[in-house]
């Protein structure tokens, strides 16, 4: 009895797991006490998800064992794990697209009345949970029709509903807004206070520092550091993770370069592969090229006929990064899809280099989609084949050349992959993201559109990706970045557009884009116009064709 009381709530001892040639976990020891929030951090491919999957019975370790309250347990399936009081939020969402939110949350532990599903109770329970933790979802909505961010909330609700004694969260905040993330961590703390042990996998060190009690750092499948959160710093964690400190000038702004680049060079040619102490990322405020991407009074209706994009106008100049902020579902997705020609505009125009975009025709922008498994990759195809998509031309396919090109990209973008022939599904989440970025950045299109550029990407790679995007801008590209990470937008963008209910409700130069201002705009609150006279909240955005005129003036 006493022993049990003292034993950690859950303990992983000597866990080793090999996938073919990849040693994903190499003798990992990790213990979590009752009521403790334990962060697990590490580079992409460090083995975090694998370790969590083993704990949840999804993979079986080659060596080592799992102990629960001091006693070894056999976890052959998630059913076993659940029986032992474990719950997990997966990095790759595991939801039923055809079921409603409420059904997704309660399935497996359904409320029943007289042998029949109690839908009312399910809806109430979900609404109550969602309300309590500030995760706004409609219990009756069909999950397949929800944006990724909202789906993530459903995944979290699932774990909350089950009230596990050990809760595993694998990158739960990857697509949450800061407000939602804060709400989640409040919840997590509440749980911990009730005695729940929480394992938190994340790449966001602020979250680690703010929410965890202890941290375990993985690198190359091994534990490279154990820290009490209170006694460590971001820098120390980073060093344990990647073996060095981050570029020091991350938050500083670089001075504008002298002249706008006259020629568009493909990113291939631009300096990439940022190493320690590489060129800092910064905005070159005020430097205006011509509009490479222009959106004029765009209206897009979704399937139910509701205006998802309602009269949006803006432009992105050569050599500029424009950020796109907004709560998930505010029309960003539809806007981006229309800009990239994957969706037909209801009315209005999108001009790329002055030429209108035609839906369904050749894509003329490089585009990094936010939905990695759904659009950005074909998980079952090889990494090489995934890296080719969009660049294929001619009639003959030269597999050797495809592989060579893939190997070069893998090398250049430091993607961790065992082989370019293996399915891209075998890559860790962050490495898959890097592969998509590698593919799109190597396209020599003047306009680059990126959704969630660092979704699920480790801090080292975040820095690298930011440098790549900045390099693209410096090479004279027009870059549109949508991110739910406000700090990311602030670090990257020259200007930030905020969308709310299908409209651009604010445009802020990066110097004025504080969390408070952005947050207010994102939730539809009116805010004092930062840049000039506004007639009302709706007109806060860049209205009508003014930017076009500006551009012409600037060009002339």
């Amino acid at each position, binding site marked *: 009895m006493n022993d049990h009381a003292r034993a950690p709530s859950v303990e992983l001892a000597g866990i080793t797991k090999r996938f073919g040639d990849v040693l994903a976990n190499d003798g990992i020891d990790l213990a979590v006490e009752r009521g403790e929030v334990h962060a697990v951090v590490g580079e992409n491919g460090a083995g975090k998800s694998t370790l969590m999957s083993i704990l*949840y019975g*999804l993979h079986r370790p080659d060596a080592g064992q799992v102990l629960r309250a001091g006693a070894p347990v056999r976890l052959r*399936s*998630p*059913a076993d*794990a*659940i*029986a032992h009081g474990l719950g*997990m939020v*997966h990095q790759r969402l*595991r*939801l*039923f*697209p*055809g*079921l409603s939110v409420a*059904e997704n949350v309660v*399935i*497996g532990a*359904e409320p*029943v009345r007289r*042998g*029949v*599903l109690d839908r009312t109770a399910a809806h109430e329970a979900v609404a109550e949970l969602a309300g309590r933790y500030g995760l706004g979802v409609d219990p009756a909505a069909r999950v397949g029709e929800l944006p990724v961010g909202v789906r993530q909330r459903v995944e979290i609700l*699932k774990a909350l509903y089950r009230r596990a004694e050990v809760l595993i969260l694998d990158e739960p905040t990857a697509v949450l807004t800061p407000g939602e993330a804060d709400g989640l961590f409040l919840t997590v703390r509440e749980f911990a206070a009730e005695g729940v042990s929480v394992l938190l996998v994340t790449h966001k060190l602020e979250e680690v520092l703010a929410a965890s009690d202890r941290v375990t750092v993985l690198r190359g499948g091994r534990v490279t550091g154990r820290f009490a959160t209170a006694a460590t710093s971001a820098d120390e964690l980073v060093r344990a993770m990647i073996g060095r400190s981050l570029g020091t000038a991350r938050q500083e702004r670089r001075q504008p370069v002298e002249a706008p680049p006259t020629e568009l060079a493909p990113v291939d040619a631009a300096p990439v592969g940022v190493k320690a102490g590489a060129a800092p990322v910064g905005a070159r405020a005020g430097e205006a090229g011509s509009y490479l991407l222009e959106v004029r009074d765009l209206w897009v209706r979704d*399937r*139910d*006929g509701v205006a998802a994009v309602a009269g949006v106008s803006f432009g992105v100049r050569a050599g500029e990064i424009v950020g796109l902020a907004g709560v998930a579902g505010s029309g960003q997705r539809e806007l981006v899809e229309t800009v990239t020609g994957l969706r037909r505009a209801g009315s209005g125009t999108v001009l790329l280099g002055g030429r209108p975009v035609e839906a369904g025709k050749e894509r003329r922008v490089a585009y990094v989609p936010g939905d990695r498994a759904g659009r950005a990759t074909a998980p079952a195809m090889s990494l090489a084949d995934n890296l080719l998509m969009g660049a294929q031309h001619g009639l003959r396919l030269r597999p050797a050349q495809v592989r060579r090109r893939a190997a070069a990209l893998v090398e250049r973008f430091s993607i961790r992959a065992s082989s370019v022939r293996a399915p891209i599904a075998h890559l860790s989440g962050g490495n898959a993201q890097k592969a998509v970025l590698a593919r799109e950045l190597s396209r020599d299109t003047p306009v680059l559109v990126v959704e969630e550029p660092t979704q699920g990407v480790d801090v080292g790679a975040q820095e690298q990706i930011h440098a790549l995007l900045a390099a693209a801008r410096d090479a004279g590209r027009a870059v549109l970045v949508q991110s739910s990470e406000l700090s990311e937008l602030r670090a990257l963008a020259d200007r930030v557009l905020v969308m709310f209910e299908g409209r651009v409700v604010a445009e802020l130069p990066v110097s004025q884009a504080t969390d408070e201002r952005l947050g207010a705009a994102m939730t539809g609150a009116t805010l004092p116009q930062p840049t000039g006279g506004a007639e009302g909240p709706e007109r806060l955005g860049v209205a009508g064709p003014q930017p076009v005129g500006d551009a012409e003036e600037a060009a002339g």
Partner: protein
Amino acid sequence: MNTFLAAVLTATAPVVLAALGGLLCSVSGVFNMALEGQLLWGAFTAVLFSHATGSAWLGVAGAVLATVLYAALLSVPAVTFRADPVVVAVGTNLLALGLTAFLMRQVFGSGGTFSSPDLSGLPTLAALGLDLPVLGPQSPLVPVAFLLVVWASWWLGRTRSGLRLRGIGQHAEAAESIGLRVPVYRHAAVLGAGALCGLGGAQLALGNVTLFSEGMSAGRGWVAVVAVMLAGARPWLGLGACLLFGAAEALGFRLQGFGLPQQAADAAPYLITLLALVVAAAMRRDKERTV
């Protein structure tokens, strides 16, 4: 008109039962193309047990049991070993054809058709004192078939196991990660489909007629497969497809009497079903456009 309705109901009942089975499988994520063979096996075993016991009801029970066993030939390879269910179905359909014809010679001593005055068929509803003139002279399994559709629709939508089955079919990994034992549900669905095909076969051989003849399922299992593909996870839609198909068939029969070529009558149910699909799809699109 009354006889037309009755004819449609009689002809459709075995198809409805098989389609319902296929639908349960498809909801659980197993594509069941073995319905044709299972229907045939059900018909044969129904006759076998009815003849042996002298009771049509024992024949029905025997058919259900025997076809559940036969369905294990699909469920074990496809669910446990994860073999391609379509390939396995091609095998079991062939097996059913050979096995019924072979056993028929062994048991009844002759090939081709077996019918006998000793073979007791299912009674009509009227004979059981349940006179429902609208339905015509039907075996009790006909209303049972249609009631089972109602029940399945309710069960899938409103019960715990129904919800879980739907979830498993949509995303097996997700189901596994909430602790559902996916194979158990899939086995249950495939074996349940076997039971329904047994019932359908019994209706065919002891209800529609009272005899067994080689290959007498005659494509009904394939019609059921089409219905399943049309219906997705919605039992009512499956029922609708079966009834539409049956009605078109019966109409084609009647029109033959007015000189419609037999080949056109054969084609009619397929073309009418396709036409109905096209009209439904076009209407859906129109609605989307006008909103």
